[in-house]
């Protein structure tokens, strides 16, 4: 419980108190209330995944408890434990505290995207990239499960580059390439870290990351703001 309270306070506190400078030099600095309303989606999303993890870890917050995790994490469609709702729920489930914290820090950082586009579009990107990243299960073995919000984080990261008003087709392609360059460096670094850990039965879902980013990029290009 202490981990849950500490992480919640840290996440919400850092997002509320680290404020960006105003958009215009004429504007006054943001108040805490204005800042809260500008990033309420990111705050709610972070709080949701923390709370879900509290319940699925049976309140110890370190490791996910297998029964609940099995119901919420995404299974292969040919697996008997597969439920269609898992395409939605797997995004909010994390295997352990390290998995959760690494994804939570990315979501907190990408609250800058919500500041730019607003709550409605932010939620749509979260849902679309969450669904697309879930499709990665089709590329894996029947016994595999996927979980975590990293596909959404990659989706938000991608549209942070690509979802801008008045981008020409050429600039849009440049934006995608810039994101891919950054994502490849981060994934390469991550891949090498994972190689060093021996006897590990979990793997990073790189296909899910790619599909999450792909879904978000396509959605924001088709539905312009």
């Amino acid at each position, binding site marked *: 419980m202490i981990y849950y309270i500490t992480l919640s306070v840290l996440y919400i506190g850092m997002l509320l108190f680290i404020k960006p400078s105003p*958009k*215009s*030099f004429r504007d006054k600095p943001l108040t805490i209330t204005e800042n809260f309303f500008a990033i309420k989606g990111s705050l709610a999303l972070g709080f949701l995944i923390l709370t879900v993890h509290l319940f699925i870890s049976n309140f110890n917050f370190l490791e996910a408890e297998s029964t609940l995790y099995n119901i919420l994490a995404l299974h292969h469609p040919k697996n008997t434990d597969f439920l269609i709702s898992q395409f939605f729920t797997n995004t909010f489930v994390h295997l352990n505290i390290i998995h959760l914290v690494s994804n939570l820090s990315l979501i907190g950082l990408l609250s800058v995207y919500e500041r730019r586009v607003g709550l409605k579009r932010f939620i749509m990107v979260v849902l679309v990239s969450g669904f697309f990243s879930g499709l990665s299960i089709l590329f894996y073995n029947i016994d595999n499960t996927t979980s975590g919000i990293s596909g959404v984080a990659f989706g938000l990261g991608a549209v942070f580059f690509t979802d*801008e008003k*008045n*981008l020409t087709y050429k600039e849009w392609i440049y934006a995608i390439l810039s994101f891919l360059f950054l994502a490849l460096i981060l994934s390469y670094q991550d891949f090498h870290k994972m190689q060093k850990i021996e006897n590990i039965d979990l793997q990073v879902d790189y296909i899910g990351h790619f599909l999450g980013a792909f879904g978000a990029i396509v959605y924001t290009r088709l539905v312009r703001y």
Partner: protein
Amino acid sequence: MTKEEAKKYIVKSIKQDDELVGLFTAQGPFPIWWFLLLGPLGSLFFKFYYIGVTQKGISFYRLSLMGKFKDNGDFFKFSEIKSVKVKGGFTQRPLIFTLINGTKIKIKAQIKGLDRVAKLTEEVQKHIENNITVVS
């Protein structure tokens, strides 16, 4: 974006009774905290501007991550700017504008670089110094 494209945009956005003297690109202060937190990813938090200097004042146009204009910029009449501090530099010249309300705008104006990049010229700098109190 080339300086010609930027000039077109700035000319369109300034008032009819005003006239553009010159424009230049500038960079905001180094985002040291983001670099300490994120390492190289901190470079995503650099702020870039196009500055349009007119007969009546100065416009600051913030650029997006992809180098596009975000909005119509912030225009300040020379009478709204209390002072300007001009420092020395090899490729960039730091300028600190202090507004009447006490707000400080710190930028580093580009003075050297590629031909397609708009740079702070002697003429534009003189125009700024003639209209705003220069502090050392």
